[in-house]
């Protein structure tokens, strides 16, 4: 029997009601998580006591703000198994992935000197993505391909909704970058990272991992995984909106040309030219989301206190219940693996004949919040022959009562549109 968690009380929003007094059943954590009071308190305390410009002032508050900012970096680095200097703050995972793709672009345009030559792309080179990707890990690579003349190829998806590891031969000697997701935000499938990294390494390609879903829902050790770059977002992991991070192996960040340019990332600026700071500062132009990094610090502290293993076991249990419940509802088709093994509690499905919007609406009427649409992943929906889906996703605070309400609600949907 899993050690079930009982943490909903820490999350102020979860106690609210919706649609004329119905208790809220929040099953949209895959889109964005709710935040515990601890996170909100930490952010507020920072704003009320330590808010100042970071890395700049000689005064006490500026010193405190700098310490808060850098200690958040160190906490987040430790949380994902990275070194301090390997974490770059971004506004979200999308920016982090763009930072990498634009680093390659800038190198290809001749920026960054000899060090950056390793990132140059040209016609004949290939970029490999997967059919499972969120648009955030697909469109930036399409853009990079269009701008450099490199060719975009992709790893297909199995009927179960997993990366097809039999098809890794898409990665060839021409491949320079392999960008892939650690866990799908549609099928919930968790990728076996090792074979992809191994294949990429064997051809000398860089690996970029979208760890947006994984970092929030399972223990992640980026050094162990051996990827070159990885991206994740604070708002998916109990932290504030407006903050995310890029992980890059130190040696690579040292060589990558900057992306956003401006204040705080420069050394010497003349009207004619500029020299840049070492990483991570080189990639942090302008005033950073300081209060939000402090909130993210509190979020990873919260997650660590719970324990990511326990969290994963709890969510796994919720995932099982969701899968079982779904299987009971006649006609509903699951988009993703049917067992909870190597899978997150992210459950997307199709109710034939009923559009996801309508599914979501009837659930919403019962206070149940799910996500409907393509979840920013049109290709994998096309792969399943659907245009959109409904998705229920669990978090650390999800309870068996939430799952029961959802399953009951889904029966209601089918009845309503019968």
């Amino acid at each position, binding site marked *: 029997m899993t050690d079930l968690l009982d943490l909903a009380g820490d999350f102020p929003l979860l106690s609210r009601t919706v649609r004329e007094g119905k208790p809220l059943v929040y099953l949209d954590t895959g889109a964005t998580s709710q935040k515990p009071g601890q996170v909100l308190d930490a952010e507020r305390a920072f704003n009320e006591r330590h808010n100042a410009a970071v890395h700049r002032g000689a005064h006490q508050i500026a010193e405190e703000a700098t310490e808060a900012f850098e200690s958040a970096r160190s906490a987040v680095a430790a949380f994902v198994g990275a070194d301090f200097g390997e974490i770059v703050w971004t506004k979200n995972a999308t920016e982090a992935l763009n930072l990498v793709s634009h680093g390659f672009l800038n190198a290809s345009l001749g920026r960054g000197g000899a060090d950056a030559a390793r990132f140059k792309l040209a016609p004949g080179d290939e970029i490999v993505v997967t059919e499972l990707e969120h648009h955030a890990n697909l469109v930036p690579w399409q853009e990079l391909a269009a701008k450099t003349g490199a060719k975009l190829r992709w790893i297909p998806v199995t009927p179960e909704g997993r990366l097809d590891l039999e098809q890794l031969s898409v990665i060839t000697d021409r491949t320079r970058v392999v960008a892939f997701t650690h866990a799908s935000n549609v099928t919930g499938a968790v990728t076996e990272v090792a074979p992809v990294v191994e294949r990429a390494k064997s051809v000398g390609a860089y690996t970029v991992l979208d760890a947006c879903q994984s970092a929030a829902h399972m223990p992640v050790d980026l050094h162990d995984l051996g990827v070159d770059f990885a991206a994740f977002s604070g708002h998916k992991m109990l932290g504030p909106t407006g903050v995310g991070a890029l992980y890059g192996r130190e040696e690579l960040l040292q060589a990558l040309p900057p992306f956003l340019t401006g204040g705080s990332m420069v050394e010497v600026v003349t009207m004619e030219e500029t020299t840049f700071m070492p990483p991570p500062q080189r990639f942090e132009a302008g005033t950073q989301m300081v209060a939000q990094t402090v909130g993210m610090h509190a979020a990873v502290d919260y997650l660590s206190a719970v324990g990511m293993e326990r969290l994963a076991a709890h969510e796994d249990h919720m995932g099982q219940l969701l899968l079982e419940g779904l299987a009971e509802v006649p006609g509903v088709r699951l988009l993703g693996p049917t067992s909870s093994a190597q899978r997150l509690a992210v459950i997307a499905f199709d109710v034939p004949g009923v559009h996801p919007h*309508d599914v979501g609406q009837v659930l919403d009427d019962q206070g149940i919040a799910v996500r409907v*649409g393509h979840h920013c992943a*049109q290709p994998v929906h096309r792969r399943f022959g659907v*245009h959109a889906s409904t998705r229920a996703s669990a978090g650390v605070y999800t309870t068996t009562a939430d799952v029961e309400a959802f399953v009951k609600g889904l029966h209601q949907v089918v009845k309503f549109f019968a």
Partner: protein
Amino acid sequence: MEQLYQQVILDHSKARSGEGELDSPHGASFQVNPTCGDECTVQVSLEGQRLAQLAWSGKGCSISQASLSLMYEMVDGEPLEQAEQLGETFRELIHNRGHELTPEKMELLEDLSAFTGVGRYSARVKCALLGWMALREALAQARHHTGASGQPPQTQA
């Protein structure tokens, strides 16, 4: 729920009147609802100041499909000005947060008045209006094409 999903909406979402394609439309418009990726295409051809023919295709939720189906029934073959005025009134209704408009306007809307409840759900506003946005663009194009006089009205989406 029953207030949102009036029977006429559920029926039309299945009936899909006017679904099809024109051979040589004077104007056409493709619209996407980025929230969910729902799409529709509306094609029109004019005869003088009359909307001679309308056809649509699309995939989407019951609200968007019913809206298209009813749109077809109410504007196909009608004078341009009347079609456009109906569109404006429907837009006004949908933006009215679930409240009815004046009795005259409600009367003008006929079966479209079943959409009153949609306005309470801001996420569904786009669903109800997607086809009408396409109609507006298609008509503007067709007027331009055929030189039909009169300006398409410029108002909020």
